[in-house]
């Protein structure tokens, strides 16, 4: 995950943003927290009551703060509300001296988390000490049925790609398709593509077609480089649907594969051959 030196810089940046977004009561509440001697023992109440002290407005950023967020690859934080940011900061700054104690304190919060608390808890994953101990908690979160909680785990969150095992990762991606999340902001999507996932996704596509429903074109991005004779048959079915978006997505997927029969097949569609040779397609367009 984040190197310790990066984490220190990031935490400073987050605190700076929090301070410029808080007023009187919120600032004195934060000040009192910063001087609390045994923070792990009192994180419960502080974490829970944060919105009562910070409000829930979307954070306002100066140009230099925004630039620093961009620099740290944290641009998405610009969309967060102040209570969410503050809660993430509270968790990521807990003393990392006693792993057991920290694990128990944060697990306790998860047990009774309401929706916005759960969002903050999962948003905090990339910033927590001892990153490997939260993997099961993260996998558990994917079982949630609450949209905003799933978004906090799936979208713009670097933690899952780095720490989930393959089964849990595949569940995350599959569920993201099922629940219509923004696939293109899943961090590590291409890097963690794998054959098992590609096969599951092609089955899913067939199911959708059988039900007369459309397939999210981003799906093919995870399939292309694993194209074999079995997957090729599914791609052919998709190409024969004459839905232009779907066809183009499949063509782009095949462009990333080494499976020659599929490439030859794409070339029988003049329009697809043309967009591929002119390199005019990218996954961001879908």
């Amino acid at each position, binding site marked *: 995950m984040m190197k310790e030196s990066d984490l220190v810089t990031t935490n400073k940046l987050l605190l700076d943003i929090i301070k410029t977004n808080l007023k009187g009561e919120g600032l004195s509440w934060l000040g009192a927290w910063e001087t609390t001697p045994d923070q792990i023992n009192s994180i419960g*109440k502080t974490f*829970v009551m944060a919105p*009562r002290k910070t409000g829930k407005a979307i954070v306002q950023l100066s140009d230099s703060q925004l630039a620093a967020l961009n620099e740290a690859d944290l641009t998405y934080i610009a969309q967060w509300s102040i209570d969410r940011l503050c809660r993430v900061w509270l968790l990521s700054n807990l003393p990392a001296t006693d792993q057991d104690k920290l694990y128990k304190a944060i697990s306790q919060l998860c047990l*009774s988390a*309401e*929706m916005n*608390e759960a969002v903050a808890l999962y948003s905090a994953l990339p910033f927590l000490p001892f990153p490997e101990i939260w993997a099961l908690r993260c996998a558990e979160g994917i079982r949630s*049925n*609450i949209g*905003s909680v799933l978004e906090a785990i799936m979208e713009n969150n670097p933690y899952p790609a780095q720490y989930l095992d393959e089964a849990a990762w595949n569940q995350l991606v599959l569920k993201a398709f099922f629940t219509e999340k923004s696939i293109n902001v899943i961090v590590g999507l291409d890097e963690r593509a794998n054959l098992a996932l590609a096969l599951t996704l092609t089955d899913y596509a067939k199911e959708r077609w059988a039900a007369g429903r459309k397939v999210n074109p981003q799906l093919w991005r995870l399939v292309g480089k694993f194209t074999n004779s079995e997957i090729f048959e599914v791609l052919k079915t998709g190409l024969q649907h004459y839905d232009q978006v779907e066809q183009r997505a499949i063509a782009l997927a095949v462009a990333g594969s080494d499976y020659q029969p599929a490439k030859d097949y794409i070339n029988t569609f003049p329009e697809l051959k043309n967009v591929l040779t002119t390199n005019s397609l990218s996954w961001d367009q879908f």
Partner: protein
Amino acid sequence: MMGAPEAFDISVVSGMKFFDPHVHMTSRTTDDYQAMADAGVVALIEPAFWLGQPRTGLDSFRDYYSSLIGWERFRSSQFGIKHYCTIGLNSREANNESLAEQVMEILPLFIYKEGVVGIGEIGFDDQTAAEEKYYRAQLELAKEAGLPVQIHTPHRDKKKGTQRSMDIAIEHGLDPYSVIVDHNNEETVKEVLDRGFFAAFTIYPFTKMGNERMVEIVKQYGPERIMVNSAADWGISDPLAVPKTAALMKIHGLSNEAIELVTYRNAITAFAQSGQIDEADFNTPQNIDQSVKFEGNTILRGGQQPRADKSSMIIS
């Protein structure tokens, strides 16, 4: 009082917004949520209650409180209704003292959560010593947290139980204006209002208040500090009690202002003292055609559910 059944004609109150400050949605179906949204209910409060049979352990309480602020709130949002709750140890289960002690220990973890608008529903059932002990302890908790209190008054020996609940609240230094006394009837309402408390009425068939009687009460006492609720739960109850009562008031000639106070505004005034109700969260117009997508993004907010057309034979 039982006249010929009269059909509920929602058009009488169409365009009005309603706030149901006492309804146990955990016990209701999604069809109820849709019917409530259709009838103009924009927000509700779910008080913590017992579940029809006693819980045997602390974790059952923890999970119940968590579901009120978690899953049930989310479920409600899918139908465009803003869900708040009050958290407390109910009077019946206060009688299991060893469990009650444990529950009191976890209450502070819940009462500061977002959307918790009060301590409730607490008070008396059998009016035992244990009930009084935990009622008092929770009044202290409310005072410390600066939260309103939602008082459940007993079915049996109601008048004395109601008086005793108010006496004790005042003894603990609570401002009557921060206390909502629930399940009133013709016998209790005058004293509750005279002493400066909010008076809530539960419109519940057979056992509590009927809405024809409710119309008479508002005519007699005026709309100030009075609110109606459905208290719909797992019993024979009606989640549309608030809009139906509004319609009946309209037919009987009460002013729109009075109806709005009793079925919407007074509840907000009382529970917004928690600092947890932002009217902007629910008074913006709801989207009608939920299937419209904009650039591939659904307009349904916060995971709202698309509606199935139930009049259609085709289910797709």
